[in-house]
Each structure stands twice: as C-alpha cells, then as structure tokens.
C-alpha cells in the first residue's frame, strides 16, 4: 500500500493562504496539482453586495476534515488540502481554498471539483450578505 494520502483542513477566521495549501499537497509522485478559490463576488443575482460574513457550526472543521479524508482515500489522489474562512470578508477575499495532487491532470480536476461540491453540500457554514441598499440576507435561508 502506498503511503496514506496526506490531508489538511481548517476552518479559520484568518485570511486563507492558497500557496500554503498548494505546497501542502506537493508530492514527488504527483504530475498534477489543481486548486480552487471560492471568492467573494461584488454581486449576487444582479444585486450589488458590499460585505459578507460566514458563520460556522462548531462541528464545521471536523466535517471539513472528513470530506478531505474521503477525497484523499480515492485511488488516484496523493494529497488534499482544503480550508474555509469564517467571520467578515470583503469583496475579492477568498472564502474557500482547496488543492489536490494526483499523478495525472484528469484525476486532479475531477477530485478537486468533487471536493468543493462535497464541502458545499455538507459543511455546516452559512453566509450572510449585506447589499448596497442596506438590506441583508442569510443565503439559502427563507
């Protein structure tokens, strides 16, 4: 059995360091590294957004690491690093970073996309957006 794939996962209120995640997945066997950044956009459904805040459930980091471990357990994957930001964020700041290393690029693109999809589906984190007209909303919440 090859060395178990390494994983790194953190929910933090500090700015996310994508380069650190890319370095964390470096592996002599890896020919491909794919990384993702979820960035705070200046609008949502056409409405200008001025600021945004993420709130995490206490279990968020544990869930994040479970998702990372599942992706890392896949045969082609050498390493996974994924982190989510909580607290207030400005436009252009990064809310989610993810990086995956594999032998070949197809597996890296597929695994990184799956990682982000799983994080979005399962991570108990919520987003409150404040719009330019002063109104605000919890995304996906009635």
């Amino acid at each position, binding site marked *: 059995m090859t060395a178990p794939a390494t994983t790194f996962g953190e929910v933090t209120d500090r700015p996310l360091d994508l380069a650190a995640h890319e370095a964390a997945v470096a592996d002599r066997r890896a020919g491909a590294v794919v990384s993702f950044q979820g960035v705070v956009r200046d609008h949502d459904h056409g409405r200008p957004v001025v600021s945004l805040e993420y709130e995490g459930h206490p279990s968020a980091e544990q869930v994040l690491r479970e998702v990372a471990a599942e992706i890392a357990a896949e045969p082609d994957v050498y390493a996974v690093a994924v982190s989510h930001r909580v607290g207030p964020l400005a436009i252009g700041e990064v809310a*989610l970073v993810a990086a995956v290393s594999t032998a070949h690029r197809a597996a890296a693109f597929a695994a990184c996309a799956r990682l982000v999809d799983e994080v979005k*589906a399962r991570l108990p*984190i*919520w*987003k*409150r957006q404040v719009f330019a007209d002063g109104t605000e909303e*919890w995304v996906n*919440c009635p």
Partner: protein
Amino acid sequence: MEPTPLTIRYFAGARAAAGRAEEVTPAGRSLDDLTVELAQRHGDQLAAVLRVASFLVNGVTCHDRQAPLPGGATIDVLPPFAGG
C-alpha cells in the same frame, strides 16, 4: 420527576428568525411535535426556516423525527448550508 429540559440552539438564519440564539424547553416530545410548538411560539419566519432546516440531536443528525427526544439533549437547528 421531570426529565431535564432540552436546550435548543439556533444558528445563522434560524437565530435571526427565532430572535434568540438559545432556548430551553421541556423534553419528552418528538422533533416533529417540538418544531410545531416552536413555530407557533416564534411565528411564520421561524416556521419557514424549520421546514427546510436539518437538526442535530447531541451533535448527531436526527433522522427519526417521531422518536421522543432524550431529556437534557441539545437540539441544533441548522438552516440549509451556504458555504464556499
């Protein structure tokens, strides 16, 4: 002897709808009964959230909403996630 009451924790949009972060309420009912009561107590906004929320009972996702909730349990009300 009364079973120890439940602690309900509201997160994000649920907290906004309930107007509070936490609440204590008598144990002994199922999650379905509990949510009906909470909706009546706090109004339509919370009722709408409760309809789409998921729930943790002592940290574990609750799948049987008819089973009576254990005394002293912590019930977390989680609106639909919106991470990333």
